[in-house]
């Protein structure tokens, strides 16, 4: 609470310095400069008006600054307009997710067509970062981001149900791979007992069967046990997968943020050097 209180009592110079630092983390240098200049001009006018009303200089400064709230909160509000906030960028987060799922696709089966679309998502990720740095209109950037996400979703929908998909979706939903495979094994039995032998069902059954033979042999021995007890029994084997899945989620979230922050810091350092 103390730090919050002290932030509300920043003097003009401190406030502008904080504002500049906060803006530099989230906005392009040009946006940062113009915003700080604009706020500086506003505070000047505000202080002058308060002095004319009889305030002393110090009070006038504090009150003029206080009406902007904390720099972080102010920048957060401005970020909702400029769509440039590093930590609150859903399209970039989703593209980051597509990128790590591409890694998952590739590691699991390089021959599977999914990795090509995943690669497209990864390229779009880097393209969008470059485009953001180039300050192209926000609508075009948004379209680009949505395109990447749509590409990822399309490949998820049209791909046959194979381990590669389960791997990716397991990574997205904190679902351990072996748990997903167990579910497939159960579904296999269910589909076999329920389907009328149609081509569609037969394809899926073949896939399940193939997987059961290749990947879920240990799980087949436990088919008579309850689902929960099998998860418990397989926990030591699933832990590494769970850890990898969790790592992928964290990576997907942090990757775009870290890259952009590093990029902005690099640009700021370049500007300082040139100045």
């Amino acid at each position, binding site marked *: 609470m103390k730090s919050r209180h002290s932030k509300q009592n920043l003097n003009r110079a401190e406030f502008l310095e904080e504002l500049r630092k906060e803006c530099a983390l989230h906005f392009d240098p040009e946006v940062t400069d*113009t*915003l700080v*200049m*604009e*706020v*500086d*001009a*506003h505070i*000047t*006018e*505000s202080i002058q*008006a308060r002095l004319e009303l009889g305030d002393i200089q110090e009070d006038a400064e504090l009150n003029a600054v206080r*009406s*902007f*709230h904390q720099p972080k*909160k*102010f920048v957060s*509000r*401005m970020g*909702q*307009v*400029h769509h440039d906030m590093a930590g609150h960028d859903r399209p970039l987060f989703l593209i980051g997710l597509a990128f790590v799922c591409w890694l998952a696709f590739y590691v699991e089966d390089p021959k599977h067509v999914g990795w090509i679309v995943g690669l497209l998502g990864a390229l779009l990720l880097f393209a969008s970062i470059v485009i953001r740095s180039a300050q192209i209109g*926000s609508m075009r950037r948004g379209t680009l981001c949505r395109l990447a996400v749509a590409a990822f979703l399309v490949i998820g929908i049209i791909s046959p149900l194979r381990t590669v998909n389960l791997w990716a979706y397991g990574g997205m939903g904190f679902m351990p791979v072996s748990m997903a495979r167990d579910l497939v094994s159960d579904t296999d039995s269910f589909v076999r007992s329920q389907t009328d032998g149609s081509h569609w069902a037969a394809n899926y059954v073949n896939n399940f069967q193939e997987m059961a033979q290749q990947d879920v042999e240990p799980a087949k021995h436990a088919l008579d046990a309850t689902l929960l007890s099998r998860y418990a029994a397989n926990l030591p084997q699933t832990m590494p997968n769970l850890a990898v899945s969790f790592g992928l989620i964290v990576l997907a979230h942090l990757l775009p943020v870290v890259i952009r922050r590093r990029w902005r810091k690099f640009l700021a350092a370049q500007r300082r050097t040139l100045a």
Partner: protein
Amino acid sequence: MAFKGDLEAMVLGVLQDGDLHGYEISKRIKQVGAKALQVWEGQLYPALHKLERDGYVSATWVQQEGKPPRKVYSLTDEGKKELTARHRSWQEFSLAIEEVMSPRKAATNGVQ
């Protein structure tokens, strides 16, 4: 403000009197609103930048002697149209609220 979403309409409203910079806009709203309207600068600038992004206002930098340059906002043609539309919808809204909240004459329709 009682109705938070109306800050943008208020900004458009005060800009129809002429070009103003940020501080003047907040001052004018407070003056016209006679203390009933409170505008925090932390809310004003996001609203101004959104209006600028949407093309309802345009901005130019004006240099000043001995002071930092200031950004002066003016209403665009699109902004004028938007103001008219928002004014109309506000009138409809306030009339509806007035109808709902105004005191009724007791038992005029015979319902007990």
